[in-house]
Every structure is written in structure tokens, then in C-alpha cells.
């Protein structure tokens, strides 16, 4: 951390800040300039909040130089983490496509969709059993019955399965059926839930909150990791901006930014980002081209009849076409699919 003192501040103000830092066990590197003094703070500064020091008289600014997150940072671990879920490795050379319906609606719907996406090359089957819906009157999901169907479909078509956990009480039951637990955008800062999934020993797919900064997102990952669960897949799904043409604005730059800051794999969800079927394919191509480790795509065998997010679900034929396109793009960025 660096503390910049105000210009020509009294020596006593500088001494008070130094005294506080030294009492707390930090080393201070003082640098007196011609009219401004800078204090470099050395030690375990992750434990202190820089804003606290901005309240001291004479302090102009206190800035953190190192990241507040540790376990999720590249500094802590240089080589990329490869998350293993059943038969799939995410974060390695292979770009992993996860696909399936937004919500599990029926056996026919799930199996038909699963069959089609598996044939096209999807390695993970997605499907919601508990749905966080904006309206309390919208379809809320099939619950445990849906999880059983998901497991059965995954086994049938040799795919790992991922489903969203909404609250702590669902975790235990979900672990019986799913390979990856998804923490949704709306729960990204539900710290009790994050702490609880930190105790789990299965991979977590952590979506970025719709108004979360990258730092807040990595701190959410830190919550899970500090509980001992290091298998985290980050998922960019778009953030809120002033643009209304798409539901959210997909932050494509988050992919290279995360790759620089963190060793955790990152995948992109083009379906939720845009909310529009016709925008999903171009965005999916961009995600893998930008270095994404995978995709999370909504596919429905009959989107017109979907109970949830129909307009953003691809038709199975479109998904097959997308996979063909990805087979051209992915080798161009030095990976395989």
C-alpha cells in the first residue's frame, strides 16, 4: 500500500500515520519529496482497508498496490488451474462447451436437447432445477425431480452436469446429482452461500454479478477458496450498462483481464449476456477467440415452447452450426475443441 500525504502537510500528521502503521506491525518506507511525502507500507497489507488511512489528517490518498485477493491471484499461483468435473477438464488446452436448456421442464425436453447438444460436441449439460426468476409468478423450476433427470441425461450422453444452487439448504441434495455447482450472478455476493460452497469438494461455476467489478468477482472467488475449495470456474455473463439493445453488455475484455490477474479458468455465457438468440452465435465466437476456456450456452429443442428464456435459447441446429464454426476458430488460437 502507498500512502500519499497532502502537499506541505504538517510533520506531525506524517508522524501520526507512521506511528499507527508501525504499531500495527508494518514496515514503512518514507520518501520525503520537495513538497510531498509518500509512505510505502510493507507487510501483510491485505488485512487493512486503505480507506481507513484516508481518514487521517494530512492524507491525500491511500492506494493498494497489490491485489486484495490472494488465493485466486496469479501472483499466488502462476500456472493455470485445471478444474476436473467427471470426464471433463476446464482450463486446459481444450475449449469446453456447456450447453442445455435454461430450465429443466420435462424428461422429453431435457433428453431431446441433451441428445442434440451431445451429438454436436457439448461436454457438459446445463439445466436449472431451481430458478431465480425476476417475477415470483414465473415458473420456479422442477427441484429435485429436475436434478434426477439431469443426472440421468448426463449419464446417458456421457456429459458432466451443471446446475445452479440458490441457497445453502439445496447444496447437500444437489451434490448427489450434479458435477458442477453454479453460483448465479444474483448470488455472487451472497457471502453465506459462497462460504457454504467453499466447504464443498466439487467444482463451482461462479458467475459475475451484473454490476460487479472484476475485483469484487475475484473476491467472491476468494470466499470460496478460503474455505478450501480451489476448483472454481469463473463465468462472464455480461454487466449492466446504459445500452438497452441487449439485456446486458458482455464484457469481452474481462477474459484477458482475468487471465492476467487470476489462474482460474474463465468461460463466457453469451446467452444471458444478450438475451437474444441472434446475438448468441457471434458473441460465442468472440469469447473463444478472446481466449475463453469455454462457453455456457442455452439450447432448447423447442424454444418457442420454453418456460424460461426461450428468446435467448438456440435451436439445436443453430448450436450444431456454431460448434462447426468454433472448430475453425479454436485451432486458430492454439487450442482444441
Amino acid at each position, binding site marked *: 500500500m502507498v500512502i500519499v500525504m497532502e502537499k506541505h502537510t504538517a510533520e506531525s500528521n506524517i508522524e501520526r500515520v507512521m506511528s499507527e502503521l508501525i504499531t500495527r506491525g508494518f514496515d514503512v518506507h518514507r*520518501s520525503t519529496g520537495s513538497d510531498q511525502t509518500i509512505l510505502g507500507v510493507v507487510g501483510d497489507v491485505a488485512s487493512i482497508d486503505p480507506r481507513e488511512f484516508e481518514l487521517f489528517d494530512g492524507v491525500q490518498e491511500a492506494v493498494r498496490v497489490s491485489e486484495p485477493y490472494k488465493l485466486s491471484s496469479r501472483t499466488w499461483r502462476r500456472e493455470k488451474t485445471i478444474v476436473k468435473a467427471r470426464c471433463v477438464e476446464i482450463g486446459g488446452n481444450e475449449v469446453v462447451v456447456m450447453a442445455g436448456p435454461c430450465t429443466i421442464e420435462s424428461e422429453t425436453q431435457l433428453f431431446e436437447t441433451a441428445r442434440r447438444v451431445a451429438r454436436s460436441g457439448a461436454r457438459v449439460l446445463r439445466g436449472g432445477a431451481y430458478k431465480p426468476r425476476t417475477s415470483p409468478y414465473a415458473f420456479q423450476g422442477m427441484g429435485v425431480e429436475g436434478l434426477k433427470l439431469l443426472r440421468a441425461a448426463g449419464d446417458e450422453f456421457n456429459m458432466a452436469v451443471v446446475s445452479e444452487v440458490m441457497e445453502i439448504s439445496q447444496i447437500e441434495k444437489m451434490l448427489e446429482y450434479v458435477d458442477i455447482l453454479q453460483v448465479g450472478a444474483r448470488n455472487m455476493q451472497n457471502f453465506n452461500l459462497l462460504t457454504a460452497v467453499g466447504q464443498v469438494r466439487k467444482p463451482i461455476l461462479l458467475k459475475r454479478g451484473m454490476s460487479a467489478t472484476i475485483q469484487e468477482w475475484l473476491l467472491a472467488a476468494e470466499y470460496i477458496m478460503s474455505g478450501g475449495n480451489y476448483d472454481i470456474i469463473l463465468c462472464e455473463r455480461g454487466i449492466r450498462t446504459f445500452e438497452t439493445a441487449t439485456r446486458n453488455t458482455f464484457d469481452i475484455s474481462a477474459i484477458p483481464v482475468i487471465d492476467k490477474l487470476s489462474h482460474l479458468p474463465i468461460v463466457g455465457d453469451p446467452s444471458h449476456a444478450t438475451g437474444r438468440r441472434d446475438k448468441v452465435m457471434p458473441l460465442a465466437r468472440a469469447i473463444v477467440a478472446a481466449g475463453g476456456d469455454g462457453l455456457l450456452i442455452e439450447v432448447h429443442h423447442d424454444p418457442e415452447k420454453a418456460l424460461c428464456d426461450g428468446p435467448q435459447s438456440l435451436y439445436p441446429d443453430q448450436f450444431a452450426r456454431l460448434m462447426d464454426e468454433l472448430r475453425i476458430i479454436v485451432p486458430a488460437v492454439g487450442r482444441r475443441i
Partner: protein
Amino acid sequence: MNRIDAEAELKRLRDAIDRVDEVIVKLLNQRAKYAVEIGEIKGILGLPIYVPEREKEVLRHVEEENAGPLDEAAVRRLFERIIDESRRVERESARVKETA
């Protein structure tokens, strides 16, 4: 001075700097040893590691001793770094004394 002489002179001056550096490192370590002892004493007496008044005195003293060509601000910057390190050394030795 021709080119060959100039090159020889450059080498001589660089060697001279190396010799001075050797003395500086020895003296810095001698200074650090005193800091270690002071740290131990502070540990015993329960005195604070950071004493702004004393640090000011040290800076004032070296500025008075300074005969140039370094200006006062330069001497001050250099000694601020030396004091930073002394504080760290003192703290470590005070801590060792506490736990011993």
C-alpha cells in the same frame, strides 16, 4: 586526455567507487548492529520502535555533517532509507527478545 587515457581513467574511478561501496556496506552493517542492540534494549524496556524525535535528530545531524557535493535533500533521502531499514532491524530484534 586521449581516448586510451580516458578509458583507463574511467576504469580507475569505477574501481574507486567499488572500494568506497565496500566501506559503505561495512559501515551500514556496523550501524545495523547498533540498531539490533537498541532494538533488544527497547524490547526489554518496552519502548516504542518509532521515535519521530530521534529520527529527526539523526537527519539533522547528518545534514550538518554534510559537506557536499550531495545537497541536503539528497542526504536526507538516502538516510530516510537507512532509517527505514534500521527500524525494521530494531523491530525484529525487539520481537526476538520478547519471545525469548
